[in-house]
């Protein structure tokens, strides 16, 4: 192969395995276009975040950052003095990004850990235990997937308000932490497929269900548990509506809600585009890192998770 390419281009027919084919090339071109449409906006966000606001207008289509600066990121992290921030087109108002970041981490981690663990417990009961009404209860749980979140959000908001938990992390976390219907469904599928032999052997030895659950089922389901935790975490990280309703005050505000506030704090006329794009990138960073580390796992779980 290498020898042929170094010479004058041979007729395509000599390449037996994959003859050059305009159709194939066209298909690749279309696919490349789709990939570009998916990925290039993120590069554009990065480019904007590394520009100064003043130069964005004059160099609005240059591919490189307009007047390269890290100012926007410093502004986001609160490392820029208000005067500098205003000079670079920021609003000068302090946005407590670290606090929002911390809140996002707490909110997503607690809900993920709780939902995955408690859903695993429930899935175990639905998949491995025999009890009357099991399938009926499971269908009920599944049915809640059909209830639109906005519908339960209103009464849930009132409940959290009545419990005096508005603007507390507990209030934000409660509706998610016990279970999600999808998590139960997802794990049940895996638990159903586990072989009963090990379990039965343990059973004969007198092991109790708790031990079976912790020492046999959970370790054997490490891979699906990790995938589910990954998907749940990303979903929770991106959650907007509920945190907007319940956590609108600074001390519990999460990044997604903070981004909206950041946007609306733009001074009249000219939004702080570079600051906003820097903030957007930083908010997406955890997901980007997870994706870089576990991309294959995430991609491969889509075929499964979609067929609900």
């Amino acid at each position, binding site marked *: 192969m290498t020898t042929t390419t170094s010479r004058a281009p041979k007729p395509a027919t000599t390449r037996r395995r994959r003859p050059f084919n305009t159709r194939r090339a066209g298909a690749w071109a279309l696919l490349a276009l789709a990939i570009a449409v998916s990925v290039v906006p993120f590069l554009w966000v990065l480019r904007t975040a590394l520009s100064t606001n003043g130069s964005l207008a004059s160099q609005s289509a240059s591919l490189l950052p307009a007047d390269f600066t890290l100012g926007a990121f410093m502004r986001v992290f609160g490392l820029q003095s208000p005067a500098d921030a205003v000079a670079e087109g920021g609003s000068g108002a302090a946005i407590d990004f670290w606090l929002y970041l911390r809140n996002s981490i707490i909110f997503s981690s607690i809900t993920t850990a709780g939902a995955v663990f408690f859903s695993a417990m429930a899935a175990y009961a639905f998949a491995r235990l025999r009890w009357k009404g099991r399938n009926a209860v499971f269908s009920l749980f599944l049915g809640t997937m059909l209830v639109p979140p906005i519908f339960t959000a209103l009464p849930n908001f009132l*409940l959290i308000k009545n419990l005096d938990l508005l603007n507390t992390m507990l209030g934000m976390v409660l509706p998610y932490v016990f279970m999600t219907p999808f998590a139960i469904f997802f794990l049940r599928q895996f638990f159903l497929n586990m072989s009963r032999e090990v379990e039965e052997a343990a059973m004969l030895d007198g092991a109790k269900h708790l031990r079976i659950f912790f020492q046999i089922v959970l370790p054997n389901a490490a891979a699906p548990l990790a995938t589910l935790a990954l998907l749940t975490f990303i979903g929770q990280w991106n959650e907007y509506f509920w945190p907007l309703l319940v956590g609108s005050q600074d001390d519990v505000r999460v990044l997604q809600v903070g981004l909206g506030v950041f946007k609306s704090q733009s001074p009249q006329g000219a939004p702080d585009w570079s600051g906003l794009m820097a903030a957007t990138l930083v908010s997406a960073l955890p997901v980007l890192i997870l994706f870089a580390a576990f*991309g294959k796992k995430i991609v491969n779980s889509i075929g499964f998770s*979609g067929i609900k």
Partner: protein
Amino acid sequence: MTTLTKHESSAKLRSGAPTPRGGLRRFGDLKIALFFIAPAMIGFILFYVVPTFRGIYLSFTEYNILGDPEWVGFDNYAAIAKDALFWNSLAVTGQYVLINIVLQTALALGLALLMDRVAKSTLVRGALLLPYLMSNVIAALLWFWMLDYQIGVVNQFIEWSGLPRVAFFGSEEWAIPTQALINTWRHMGYTALLIFAGLQAIPQHLYEVANLDGASPFQTFRKVTMPLLRPVLVLVLVVTVIGSFQVFDTVAVTTQGGPVNATRVIQYYIYQRAFTESDFGYGSAIAVILFLILALVAFIQMKFLRGNESDLD
């Protein structure tokens, strides 16, 4: 992928008819089952079941959070029937849903076929999935910037190609299509992966037979791929429709219902009535209507899916 789809189909088989092989314990598991299910049950009852009924109850009341809900019967529903803003929100949402279904399904089907034929690599699939992993807020802000009228890069290109700039978010005729395009951008790769998984599940020998019979690629697509893909396509359509009916985040971050009422979609209208005008009864009543619409969509889905189930086997 292949292992996963195999896994999945066997899981499906089993879940259809769970076989109680554990002869050791026939009915003695109820107590322990209750223990295992207790936390999930608390969450289920507290945050799904009770709110569902409470939401229905609230829709028959007038309630501004401060006092007690006051029973008003069907007043809210009667008011909604005459509420021009509600009908507008329904029309606007319908427009959004329609653009989404057509665009997203067509693009995703094309992409899935491309992936199936030329590139099954995880890298390609991962790149296409990237937008889906971003939040609605991030997708909204990113496009809010790229589509900016003054210095957005998209408008630069439009101007270079000799066309007039487009006020994507600022004009009534463009606001909803723009929101739909953002959503399509975010979901296209994800939807393509769902369809791709469906394509992978089609037995290879069917293609070989079609090939032997001298079928053209187009004929194969029409006679083999499409019929076998139909259940997945129906599912994708329903997921898309149900999802798009609940558009909120992008609207809340970008246009907030405007210009005029061009993007006041149902969920945003519910949010406004309930939370900014603290009219919980009215908001709940619209939420009930949205719920009913989605239930109808799901019902139609069941019909369709059942009608097509035989195609897969």
